[in-house]
């Protein structure tokens, strides 16, 4: 009994624990964090293209404007906005605010609501600039 195989992370969600919005948001924070780190590398590539200019900049601009590039940028925006807002939620917890279960849910739904609005605003102004 003491030596039975215990489940190890990250394969506990859905098997050992019931699905909840709180645990989903927790894992989303990590997934978006990893995505942003990878996206950060592409940010460096883009800055390098601006520094080098010429063909490098032409090439980078074409990649960003392609359907795949736009999809990548949209995902990057969603991840950044989510990680920023949920990160603020984490900082509020660290300061001792919002540990009551109703508040945890309310702040969680607020992150999603404000996140979609912010992502929409960024893309509204972004696409207006492109037009």
């Amino acid at each position, binding site marked *: 009994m003491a030596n039975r195989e215990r489940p190890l992370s990250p394969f506990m969600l859905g098997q050992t624990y019931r699905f909840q919005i709180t645990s989903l948001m927790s894992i989303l924070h990590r997934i978006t964090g990893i995505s942003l780190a990878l996206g950060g590398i592409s940010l460096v590539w883009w800055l390098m293209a601006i520094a080098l200019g010429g063909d490098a900049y032409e090439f980078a601009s074409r990649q960003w404007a392609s359907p795949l590039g736009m999809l990548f940028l949209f995902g990057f925006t969603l991840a950044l906005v989510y990680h920023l807002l949920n*990160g603020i939620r984490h900082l509020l917890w660290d300061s001792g605010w919002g540990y009551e279960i109703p508040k945890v849910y309310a702040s969680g739904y607020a992150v999603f609501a404000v996140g979609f609005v912010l992502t929409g605003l960024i893309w509204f102004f972004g696409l207006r600039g492109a037009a």
Partner: protein
Amino acid sequence: MSGGGETSRAPRFRTPLKRALGLGSGHSGTEHFWKQRVTAVILAPLAIWFVVTLVSLVGADLETARAIIARPWNTIIFAVFLVTMFWHARLGLQIVLEDYVHTRSLEIAGHFLINFLCGLGAIASLYAIARIAFAG
């Protein structure tokens, strides 16, 4: 004489120096936790500045893009943002590796890779920003 969570009956294996330093068995105390928070607090406002600047760069030609990034405060904010971002990423990815990679050799290789890539990203972005700002 109580402190550090030790009961009065337990033998005091921890020296007064160890208690005073407060670094615990990991020898680094709350340093990682704290730096993750400090970088997060720095990144939150800078990220907003960064995104607003990026949006203003949509559809810009090379000269305009360079001129915008070369504005003094944009240059400084970009530099601080990207270095802090890669630092924060390094700290976060380290925790992800420690939590999910249970094969020690793979985990150590991952730590090498994360440190290398985040260091490379920070230095390369500083180089690019400096070149844009000082190329004139």
